[in-house]
């Protein structure tokens, strides 16, 4: 599904990604871990199409299509979804209206008519129940005054509504208490099937107890320096990142 070859990216001439290679197949869950500043969030943003990043080398293929030149919305239309580490507050636009616009714009891009209102309402009801989101919450301005946990739950609600092929969860566990973590993870697991894939970016192993990865990659200094199964996450939790750094620097 996703194939990243020798990806180099920089922002304002500062090189951040220095040759990423990653392949994610349908049905898989990949975890990307790594110390602060290793380039995890940059990788997520580059895949989603944030324009500030300059891709100087390498390529990102989605179902064999090179998406380097595609705008963020075009990538979204092809099924890429990024759950933000820091979701943006947009006062004046309700959660419901935002989702309606996002879904119908995606349908428009695919040549489909707008989703009928009753179908939309039914979908909103189902997906908000999945994430245990209060209906009143949906008429509030997007992310405005939401707690950290509400923002993250709202991100996964959006994911549920948009039904992406490839979901990238950037530090979705940060700022979540254990109950919210369980709800969010449960939501992700219910959305998971053999045709889609998830990349979980996290510092800590605890989210991976709930969303169990098939592969764990360690990102350090802009490169994936180690890959393994889910047991690698446990090892990192126990031993920290220093031994990885030492291995790389040696």
């Amino acid at each position, binding site marked *: 599904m996703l194939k990243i070859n020798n990806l180099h990216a920089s922002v304002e001439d500062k090189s951040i990604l220095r040759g990423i290679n990653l392949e994610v197949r349908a049905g898989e869950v990949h975890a990307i871990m790594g110390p602060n500043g290793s380039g995890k969030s940059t990788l997520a943003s580059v895949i989603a199409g944030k324009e500030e990043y300059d891709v100087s080398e390498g390529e990102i293929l989605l179902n064999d299509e090179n998406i380097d030149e595609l705008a963020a*919305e075009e990538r979204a239309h092809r099924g890429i979804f990024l759950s933000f580490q820091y979701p*943006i507050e947009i006062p004046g636009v309700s959660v419901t209206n*935002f989702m309606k*616009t*996002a879904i119908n714009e995606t349908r428009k891009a695919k040549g489909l008519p707008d989703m009928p209102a009753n179908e939309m309402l039914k979908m909103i009801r189902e997906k908000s129940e999945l994430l245990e989101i209060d209906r009143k919450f949906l008429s509030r301005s997007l992310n405005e005054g939401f707690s950290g946990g509400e923002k993250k739950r709202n991100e996964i609600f959006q994911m549920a509504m948009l039904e992406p092929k490839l979901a990238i969860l950037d530090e979705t566990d940060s700022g979540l208490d254990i109950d919210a973590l369980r709800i969010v993870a449960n939501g992700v697991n219910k959305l998971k099937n053999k045709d889609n894939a998830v990349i979980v970016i996290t510092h800590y192993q605890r989210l991976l107890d709930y969303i169990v990865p098939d592969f764990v990659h360690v990102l350090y200094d802009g490169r994936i320096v180690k890959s393994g199964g889910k047991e690698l996450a446990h090892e990192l939790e126990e031993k920290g990142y220093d031994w990885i750094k030492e291995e790389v620097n040696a």
Partner: protein
Amino acid sequence: MDLKEKLISSFMAFENLMDVDLPVHDIRSQAIKVFETNGFPTKRDEAWKYTSLNNVLKHDYSVFPKHENAIEYNDVKKYFIHDIDTYKIVFIDGKYSSHLSQTTHDGIDVCLMSSALNKPKYSVLIENYFNKIASKDSFTSLNTAFSCEGAYIHIPKNKLVAKPIQIVHFSTGSEAALMLQPRNLIVVDENSHVQIIERHQSLTDNPVLTNSVTEIYANKRSIVDYYKIQNDNENASLIDNTFINQKQESVASVHTFSFGGKLTRNNLNFYQNGERIDSTLKGVTIIGNKQHVDHNTLVHHIEPNCESHQDYKGIFGDTATGVFNGKVVVNKEAQKTNAFQANNNILLSDKASINTKPQLEIFADDVKCSHGCTIGQLDESAMFYMRSRGIPEKEAKALLMYAFSNNVLNSVKIPEIKQRITKIIATKLGVNIGFDL
């Protein structure tokens, strides 16, 4: 001959056509003297520092249009709020159009300034209200000197006027360049409620300069909601001078939607002459190209326990320029005043600019007054957030701009106006958003 000289010499001819025995004759004669002394303001005047009139005053405007012109309703229907029943006072090139209007004398007076100035039955009201709160600045004085036509609205006490009143001025371009000076008088007596919509629309590209004066008297416990829709073409300029005198417990609001015009200057003045008065001044400005919109507001808190709320949003693209100059004066006697002012702006291009200046003059010691102004760009991270959800760039921008203007649209009480404004914004931005905010 420059415009000032032309106007002064035209005044003689104008007065010859008018009835010199009316009290308004003296008012006009004094007003032309004020204009003659002061002339048009220049950038040397503090209040006009950021608004140059050079490009507006350079045209050879006709001061009296020669022809009576007719327009078919269907050709201009789109400029009206036409999906609800309303009273209409319509002018074409400064002349009243009975064909397009729907006036009334049934319990309320929704009619013409020319009748009010000339007919004896209105003389008491004219004597009590005409030119009583209009200021003596240059443009207002010029309008006063030439005042002869416009809307005259009198709502006697205890009337809830069910239909909004539309005041619409069309210019047809039959003159190479045209100057219009409409004069409106609106008197709303005790406990009455009225909603008024005002629009100026040029139908061709010929230059038009409108210098409009509106005096509004909101008497005890009355409610007045006034909406100004400014979406004219890029050769039409408007100097709007509005004065509102409020008596105790009255509630008055003016919403100004400035989406087009070459130069638009809104001089909006509220005077609170009574206790427990509520005044609201709100505006959304969205302009591009070389357009210029200048909001110059004054709220004068004269007595205690009153409130004022100002909220102006501006979005400026291309080389458009904006000015917000908001003055709040709180007299020593006006204790327990709550006065709020906000002016938020977004600049869409490097060459667009806004000059914003709050001016608070507070002489009372037990008051709550706040002001804030911001100038920024469209939030890039919000743009990426929306685009990452599949909303294309143009739509994402539009959504952010809607959201930005939302506070102001929220307080619009006539749903059809809200819909119309939403539609104008969408058309301006070239998008179709599937919902109304």
